């Protein structure tokens, strides 16, 4: 059972590394959004550093959501989803493997690149590690909430924008606590750990609920 799990994980990682269009594109998109914001707001560094964590979080959220509709769609098209459904591995574990692979190729690089991109929005040095930390524990929630949405829209030929429309309202709590944890590291009355631990809880909850919901959606689509 764990061999099948690792096989799916390795397959998705290999596909992401060799076929392109996955993780590195999300990173470039992240960079583009961060670059666009100062053009819209004006290059006022004081303002940018104050809203820096919020910009980074919005950028990460959008970059994670944009490519998500392909998570199950390509498998549905080439038939490997039918094989996964028919295998002895429970569908929930297969979804867990695919969600984990998605996080490893998009969420993890985004979190690691965030301090570097924070320089562009004049993020103070003290806030860099907290922002990267919140993204590190918050992005799994985005991957798995998104996986449920991706499973619902797996068989859609003209999905496109529907996935962000479905998933974005559900990611609001993650965004609230991710940004408030990052901001509390910049100073303020709330200790950093309070929103940070809630963020961890949200991620754990999303991993369970998202996996079960996505597996249910994939089963229904047969």
């Amino acid at each position: 059972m764990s061999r099948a799990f690792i096989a799916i994980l390795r397959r998705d990682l290999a596909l992401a590394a060799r076929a392109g269009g996955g993780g590195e594109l999300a990173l470039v998109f992240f960079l583009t959004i961060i670059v666009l914001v100062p053009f819209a707001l004006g290059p006022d560094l004081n303002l940018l550093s104050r809203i820096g964590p919020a910009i980074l979080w919005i950028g990460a959220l959008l970059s994670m959501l944009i490519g998500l509709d392909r998570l199950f769609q390509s498998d549905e098209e080439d038939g490997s989803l039918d094989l996964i459904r028919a295998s002895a591995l429970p569908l929930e574990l297969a979804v867990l493997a695919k969600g984990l692979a998605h996080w490893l190729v998009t969420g993890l690089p985004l979190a690691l690149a965030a301090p570097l991109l924070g320089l562009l929005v004049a993020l103070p040095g003290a806030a860099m590690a907290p922002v990267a930390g919140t993204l590190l524990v918050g992005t799994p929630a985005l991957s798995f909430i998104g996986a449920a949405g991706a499973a619902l829209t797996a068989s859609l030929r003209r999905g496109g924008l529907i996935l962000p429309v479905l998933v974005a309202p559900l990611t609001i709590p993650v965004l609230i606590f991710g940004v408030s944890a990052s901001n509390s590291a910049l100073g303020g009355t709330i200790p950093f750990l309070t929103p940070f631990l809630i963020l961890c809880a949200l991620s754990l909850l999303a991993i369970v609920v998202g996996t079960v919901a996505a597996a249910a959606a994939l089963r229904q689509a047969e």
Partner: protein
Amino acid sequence: MASLIELANPTRFMRLSAVLLPWMLGAMALALAVGFYLAWFVAPADYQQGETIRIMFVHVPAAWLALMFYSMMALSGIGTLVWRHPLADVAQKAAAPIGACFALICLLTGAFWGKPMWGTYWVWDARLTSMLVLLLIYLGIIALWRTLDDPSRAGRAVAILTLIGFVNIPIIKFSVDWWNTLHQPASVFRMGGPTIHPSMLWPLLILALGFTLLGLSLHLIAMRAEIMRRRVRTLTILEAERLDRLAAQGAPA
């Protein structure tokens, strides 16, 4: 439960709803007429809020109904997934636009009341924001219905989405207790009885009944339309298959 199973036959449902509908529409007209009369002419103006209090008579029932229709959709979602009840996804599809309209009415009337009273149309307060999220979820559900062609498959996908989105409902209900909001806390359904004066409570309850009947009547009409639409769809497919077969028989000859 037995009556629910009997209703699973769409023909029986159509017959029953045709009998029920005129009565519901009549009761709705009566309740709305009495309620609006009381709300406009009998209920006193508030000593602080003046005449704007009358907006509340539409705002509060709309908010209740937006939550009620979402809860009904979640129940229908369970009906679709667990019992494969054939009318559950019809009920769910018909409820989504009605619930979305009530959510929109609630947000708009709230904004019109908020401008003179709070001095702003909108604040990012927990109650207001969670209601806006409910509207977004409604719109997402309607969008998903429109993108999936096959009704039974769409029904199951939307049921899962509806159940995921249900986490928002308790957040809306209890947002005024959990957070320190600008929106006032619950004053009708609370421990220890309502805090509204009876002269305003009665018009509110009668109007709430009227609006509920309006929502349920619209729901029944929309369900009947959806059943007819599916019949037409099935007949069209059967007719196309028949023509196809005829063409295949004609070709070799």
